[in-house]
């Protein structure tokens, strides 16, 4: 696995992954693909407990991100995330716009203008993103929202960054797996925030669409580095 050549001395044939602007753009591109591929699934999840627009909104928002990335290619990971924030907030329309927008914006601010992000900085950016979502949406863990995917992801990324000998891929994988488990864990929860909260107990038994899309996006970050 990994790229050939450039880092010939990497142990066990594995090349250290660089979290640079190329990776960031690929991540956003794969996120857009994931939103398009899972559009109907997200719509179905949202139809069960919301207003059934999440899949469509996320797909539209990320397609607009692709257009913007092509129009004005960013020079740093932070710039790519900031452009994504602005575009999602302008194009998504539903609550996911300002929530994801704030997440990407806070992550961008956390990364600054670094050309390459080390695993600890990436874990810090994920934490900043999660804090932004919490601040904007006023949701807590267990409310059956995207926070339930992000908080385990942040914790797993931090732990992996501390234990993982500086390997970025390990951190990305840890975050994605924790987000996926966190999304699954929303199934039995009763929603306390957003449109789904109007359903009360009837919201149990359905996965939160925002947690599901969050897991897809964090999984795309792995794909971009693989």
């Amino acid at each position, binding site marked *: 696995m990994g790229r050939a050549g450039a880092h010939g001395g990497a142990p066990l044939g594995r090349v250290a992954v660089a979290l640079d602007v190329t990776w960031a753009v690929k991540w956003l591109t794969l996120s857009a693909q994931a939103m398009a591929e899972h559009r109907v699934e997200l719509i179905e999840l949202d139809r069960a407990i919301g207003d059934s627009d999440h899949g469509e*909104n996320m797909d539209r928002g990320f397609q607009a991100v692709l257009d913007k990335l092509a129009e004005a290619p960013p020079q740093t990971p932070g710039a790519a995330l900031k452009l994504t924030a*602005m575009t999602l*907030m*302008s*194009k*998504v*329309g*539903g*609550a996911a*716009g*300002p*929530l994801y*927008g*704030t997440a990407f*914006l806070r992550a961008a601010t956390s990364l600054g203008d670094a050309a390459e992000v080390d695993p600890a900085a990436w874990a810090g950016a994920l934490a900043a993103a999660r804090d932004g979502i919490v601040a*904007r*949406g006023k949701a807590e863990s267990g409310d059956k929202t995207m926070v339930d995917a992000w908080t385990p992801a942040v914790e797993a990324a931090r732990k992996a960054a501390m234990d993982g000998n500086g390997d970025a891929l390990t951190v990305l994988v840890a975050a994605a797996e924790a987000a996926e488990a966190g999304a699954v864990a929303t199934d039995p929860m009763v929603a306390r925030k*957003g449109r789904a909260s109007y359903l009360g107990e009837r919201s149990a038994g359905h996965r939160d669409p925002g947690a599901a899309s969050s897991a897809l996006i964090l999984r795309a970050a792995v794909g971009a580095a693989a």
Partner: protein
Amino acid sequence: MTVSLVVVSHSEKIADGAAELAAQMAPDVLVLTAGGTTDGRIGTSLEKVLAALDKAGSGGTVILTDLGSAVMTAESALEFAENPEEMVLADAPLVEGLVAAAVAAQGGADMHAVRRAAESVGGPARQPEDAPLKAIGEGPVTGKGPDFTGDFELVNQAGMHARPAAKIAGGLSGLDAEVTVNGVDGASMTGLMTLAAGKGSVLHVEAWGADAERAVNYVGGLVQAGFGEP
């Protein structure tokens, strides 16, 4: 410079309609709208909010919103704005808050006072059934002194606060009369609010001019109907 207002709504029609309503009571106040998404759907758009904020005047801007994600989009806009200290978000029901804010801004209130005016309108207002203009009851209207006067006891729980003040000031501004209420200008919402008159206080109304009697009747009718409030 007068405070500008920005309306953020999921619906372009709601934003435009609310702005139109406010403009009727506050013709000199710049009311900008950011309703719906850029492609005309229901939703909110940061781009539209930032564009509206950009067009606002230099006297400070108060933002009013409707449902949940409009609040989030407005908060996000403040995060992006280059001069966030010149804008504040009001936590108020959109229509009532906007009208109170517009009347306060029209009266020259500063940004924070305009925000307070919006926020003091409280929950969703119940409009009074057509204010009973003729039922003056205890308030003797006479033709002496000023052209007409009346004394009316505040019967609503909250007494004189922003919404009653906006109703009185807004209605009087359309009449050909000079009116004072306990000595302050009856057409000034902020003036009326400074009375800090609670339930049980008596408002002494004096009016001069062609519409003086109507003006006293108007204030009396509103007060005795409790402004439609409990």
